[in-house]
């Protein structure tokens, strides 16, 4: 694939790159709240079974020198972490009883 965003081994996850490769926690959390449970579940069901394999793939690179496609794969895993709570615990995108509360990650290391 000429314009592959992810490493070839993970080409089946390409369809999630546009929506779920996000640069910061506030963007990821906003995406979580803006998504339906069906969308979240579809992403989880596709990425979760590949997570261990993705970690093993990414471990081959020095963390501070990830190729672009590997970095995008890692960002998908960051999104997986954030949407695991709706899937595994809450059964809804938002944490219950937090309609008004806001608490944002302002500084996070890159990668």
């Amino acid at each position, binding site marked *: 694939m000429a314009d592959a965003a992810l490493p070839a081994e993970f080409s089946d996850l390409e369809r999630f790159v546009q929506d779920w490769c996000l640069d910061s926690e506030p963007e990821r*959390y906003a995406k979580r709240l803006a998504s339906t449970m069906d969308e979240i579940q579809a992403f989880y069901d596709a990425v979760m079974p590949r997570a261990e394999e993705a970690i093993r793939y990414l471990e081959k690179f020095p963390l501070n020198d990830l190729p672009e496609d590997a970095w995008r794969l890692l960002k998908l895993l960051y999104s997986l972490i954030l949407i695991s709570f709706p899937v595994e615990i809450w059964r809804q995108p938002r944490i219950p009883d937090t309609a008004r*509360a806001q608490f944002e990650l302002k500084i996070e*290391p890159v990668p």
Partner: protein
Amino acid sequence: MTESPKVPKQSARQYPKPPEGTWTEHYPELDTAPVSYENSISPEFFELEREAIFKRAWLNVGRVEQLRRKGSFFTRELAVAKTSLIVVRGTDDRIRAFHNVCRHRGNKLVWSDDPHEETAGNCRHFACKYHGWRYDLDGKLSFILQEGEFFGIDKAKYGLVSVHCSVWHGFIFVNLAEEPSQTLTEFLGPMITAIDYPFDKLTQRYYYRGDIRSNWKVFLDAFQEFYHPPILHGHQNPVMRQADYQDKGFYTSHFQIDGPHRVGSTSGGAGGKLVPEFYNPIERVMRSGLFGPWDPSEIVTGELPPGLNPGKKKNWGLDSFQIFPNFAIVFWETGWYLTYHYWPVAHDRLLFEANAYFTPPRNVRERLAQQLGIATIKEYALEDCGTLEATQMGLESRVVSTFPLGDQEFMCRHLNRVVNNWVEDYKRKRAED
């Protein structure tokens, strides 16, 4: 859920109390009476707290790693003291703090884009955006535009207004008093200064902040008792959601106070020690959760750093040190730490900050374990944020005037008492003057 030998059994008997029978009665400065939260709903009391507490106590405003080079600075907006500070590393490597006000016409000296927001950077001097007056990094006024137009002005008398500033283990503290009654070391006292932790090795920082509509103490109280987690956080915590904890509760294994400061120790997070079924699938993949990575970081050795686990408990998992008035450090057994800051903005509003510090990850696996840890912090904190705004509303109704606190809420009772004592002391001294 089936019982497993790996599940820690909780019972009151396993958590022995002092000879007096309770932690609360062990300390003669505390009583067991129901507590008033009038000090958390009164705007007048908040005005007193500004002067009595936040302009007299040492306040942590950051860490030295935020000022890596000569000329590195950051600003802090301290709404509680109605001031902004510049904290800067000078050419002599000394860290100083100044009020962020130009001596010429009172303009805020250092800000970018929005004067209400904090900023950070590196510079050789501070230049006022208004008329270009310049100050050296040690606060001296070095340049006045058209100096000859002024009337016998002596630049030496127009330096930035300095603030007492002192560093403990890389934590930068300020004191807004003209003359603090104690040095930082005296203020921190023996229990806190006994801590000798390799803070400088934990440079991987994640920083959260939130704007919360509750009193700073009402909010802080949820972070200094372990009575609520099996209920408020019961759904998401692998340990807490066991029926055993929800019926019998969770016990803090050690409490201690030293002056205005306090510590509570517990068996800590789950840390991956339970049978796999207790964990969420993501936790098993990332080997992390509640809150941090399960695998010990490189700072973990056979011996705990001095000052930690002050009660010398066998099943130690974390210490939650509460440094008066609004700063907490939580040390975890797997070798990372968390800080909380509760900055009052009004009697019913605070800025809540959480920083998680880890050793720099050596690979993607370690990085992801941190990422799940800090994501978990948010899932928990947001539950607290929602609930504590509700508590503030309940208190403000003034339908109930005093509230029973249990022995597990020992630290809440102590904070309430210390705050009242500091305000009383301030009022007494003001009356004497």
